[in-house]
């Protein structure tokens, strides 16, 4: 894509959307972005995923408002909703009624709806920021390694191998267990969120790093880079003005696909009780508690489970659609 030499006809064949037939009247061609957007708009599944993603982001941002309107404070006990002997909701269907939209948690009667809404904040925050971190590191290392080659490439590639071989989950478990309550000027949940972001982000960059390196390797040999070089352009200019714009598409696509992976990873950490501390609601933490009650209160497990499922699914569908739109040949 984005070959600088415009060969008439070739574009028409490979990217028919790029040529606008306006009845012989010459019109400006569409930009790459516009073309991709057109393709994306036509992909109903991807658009559906995108809408859900936007909705989830809105839910996470406006969680306090939503909960104030439709729920109860996420940590508030409602033991009047619980059967004192059976430990589960006294109402039907896990206590679902007009006041508790998704029912209540067994034992303490916390509002499941509120906890699910608040749980989305942790999940999305950790997933987005850790993805951002790994994309930044991965892009920098990938571009540098691919562009300069030689011993720099060898060194950075081995480094990536090293990180790929690292037992991330075990490391995250260990560090989550030993981290004190206060460190690096942070305390409590803030510290643990930052920690999760750093751990997840710092160890998942090699995936994107390798892809970027490969792309850079092939771009480096292209004519427009040679042309820039022969005109006397320096390395930084080539890196930022010639290579990086051509890497935006893969970066975007892999970010969207990395986010759901990280959501799952965060959920796994919370499930194993090394994420944020109770009573802060997280989807993984809710799932972990629900395992004790799945026989008598299946709804408790269903709520966070579905939340994770829908979120991951939406991001994946959207990411797939975006890849198809930006690079139709990869279909």
């Amino acid at each position, binding site marked *: 894509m984005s070959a600088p030499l415009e060969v008439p006809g070739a574009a028409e064949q490979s990217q028919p959307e790029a040529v606008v037939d306006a009845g012989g009247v010459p019109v400006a061609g569409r930009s790459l972005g516009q073309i991709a957007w057109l393709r994306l708009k036509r992909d109903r599944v991807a658009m559906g995923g995108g809408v859900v993603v936007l909705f989830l982001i809105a839910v996470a941002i406006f969680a306090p408002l939503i909960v104030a309107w439709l729920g109860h404070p996420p*940590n*508030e*006990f409602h*033991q009047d909703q*619980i*059967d*004192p*002997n*059976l*430990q*589960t909701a006294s109402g039907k269907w896990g206590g679902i009624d007009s006041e508790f939209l998704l029912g209540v948690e*067994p*034992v*303490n009667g916390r509002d499941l709806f509120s906890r699910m809404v608040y749980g989305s904040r942790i999940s999305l925050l950790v997933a987005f920021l850790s993805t951002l971190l790994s994309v930044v590191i991965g892009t920098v290392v990938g571009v540098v390694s691919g562009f300069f080659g030689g011993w720099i490439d060898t060194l950075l590639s081995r480094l990536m191998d090293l990180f790929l071989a690292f037992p991330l989950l075990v490391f995250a478990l260990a560090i989550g*267990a030993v981290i*004190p*309550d206060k460190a690096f000027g942070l305390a*409590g949940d803030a510290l643990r969120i930052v920690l999760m972001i750093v751990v997840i982000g710092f160890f998942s960059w090699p995936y994107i790093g390798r892809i970027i390196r490969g792309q850079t390797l092939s771009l480096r040999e292209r004519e427009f880079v040679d042309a820039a070089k022969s005109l006397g352009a320096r390395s930084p200019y080539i890196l930022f003005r010639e290579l990086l714009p051509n890497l935006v598409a893969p970066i975007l696509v892999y970010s969207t696909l990395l986010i759901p992976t990280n959501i799952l990873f965060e959920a796994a950490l919370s499930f194993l*009780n090394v994420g944020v*501390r*109770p*009573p802060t609601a997280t989807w993984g933490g809710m799932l972990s*508690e629900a395992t*004790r*009650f*799945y*026989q*008598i209160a299946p709804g408790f497990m269903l709520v966070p489970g579905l939340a994770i499922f829908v979120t991951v699914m939406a991001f994946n569908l959207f990411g797939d659609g975006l890849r198809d739109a930006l690079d139709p040949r990869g279909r």
Partner: protein
Amino acid sequence: MRRRRSIVAVVAATALVTGLAACGGDDGDTDGTGDQSATKAEFNAGVGKVFNPSDAKGGTLRFANSGDWDSLDPGDTYYAYAWNFVRLYGRSLTMFKAAPGEEGATVVPDLAESLGTPSDDAKTWTYKLKSGIKFEDGTPVTSKDVKYAVERSLDKATFPNGPTYFNDFLDTQGYESPYKDTTPDKLGLKAIETPDDQTIIFKLVKPFSGFDYFAQMPSTIPVPRDKDTGTKYKEHVVSTGPYMFETNELGKRIVLTRNPNWDAASDPNRKALPDKIEVQLNVNSDDMDNRLLSGDLDVAIEGSGVGAAAQGRILADQALKANADSAEVARLWFTAMNSDVAPLDNIECRKAVEYAVDKTAYQRAYGGDIGGKIASNIMPPVIPGAESFNLYETPNNAGDVNKAKEHLTACGQPNGFSTNISYRAERPKEKATAEGLQQALAKVGIKLTLRPFPLADYTKLYAGKPDYAKANNLGLMVYGWGADWPDGFGFLSQIVDSRVIRATGGNTNLAVKDPKVDALVDKAMSETDKAAREKAWVEVDKATMEGAWYVPGIWSNGLLYRPKNLTNVFITNGFQMYDYLAMGTTNK
């Protein structure tokens, strides 16, 4: 006693602590005659009487443990269920009688011919061993084997798990361990004398009238010196009881088979009905509950009751409920207040917490009404002589914001304060407790931050280590305690006496540092008259509550399930679970 459990065990095991106290132990069946029995399956048929009595021998009794033993070595164990079970493969000087209800809490002679003979000042105790008792290999048991067993249990570096009563009470004169003993027979401890092979004499540093309780601890189970392999002895304990180890795959499975050198004539206490006893270790606790209900398993060995899910199923189904027992147990779930952490060094602040706590939430955390009764003081009512009193009464036990604020003002913190609350991460009930306290105390402005710690090291490295607790501002510490044996000393001494607190950690007294309480403990300990002694322990309880060191939460109940094939099932007050010595099975 500490009911330590492995991580896996916790989820289910703690979830199981449930039962209907009011319908249970106090129904008048517990008059201690012990000859009552029941054959009709109904709720609580195993409480205070023998359910399904039988003398039929044979079959395999199948136990499962959601975790693992602290150690199978009798000198190194402190689980209630382990003390219950050890009687199958070891005989101590005295033992808890295998009988239902209160009678099960009486101490009877086992290796010894009779209970101990004290000197006038209760500082010297003498026991005579029965003759003709043999180890599993046929070697006769002598008093020297008992002395050696006690000696090695003193070595807390090698055997850290067991109780420290002998270390604290015997006149050890600095004796540490038989492994460091330079005398040729390794019997250098002067506090125990063995004038002949049948006689053993204990010399104490202070008078203690309840020594027969010490003599029932597994550390008096004889250990042959030439078979002692130190920390490896647990891999093959040499049996003196009716069963010996056939298989012992550590962490996986134990099989006990009949011991040919055990003589039933010397042992009126053990029925020894099953031919084999099998224990599976590290079994998922929910899985264990399901297998109990389906009859694939006979006993969940920890005896702390079924998990939340199984509890729901049992209570909702009359047929299942008829096979369940609710045991009122001598165990308190409570929260300790750490006076090392400001502003809880001020008694007014501690009183504010006592008033602010919503005990109904505490009870919910432990399974509601059938999980236990709301506790108003420390000693559980099931302990003989215990009295219930409430120094911090609040309407409906739900907390009193106004009174709490009054005390906060008196403490100089009218707007409340912030501190941390610790609990054992693997125990969902303790987590629910901490969350409940957080909610309740927030109403008076006391802000709690939850700090979970791993169960296995909770007392060793965290809450039970004073400098760690102080440095990390653990103002409140969620904890629980079960009686080592059902009397005031067996319940209170390890959790209220400030002199048992060690700076190195491993403490079970997390908070109480009160000279007044210590003085009362001494008074109670030297009191030889039973009624006066029971009163004295109530005074200890009152003084501790006056100092507002503990927030008592729940006096625990356990909902136990007995599959249909079990015979001779009953709950013993000695261990507050099913007695494992008398039990038989109709499964072949």
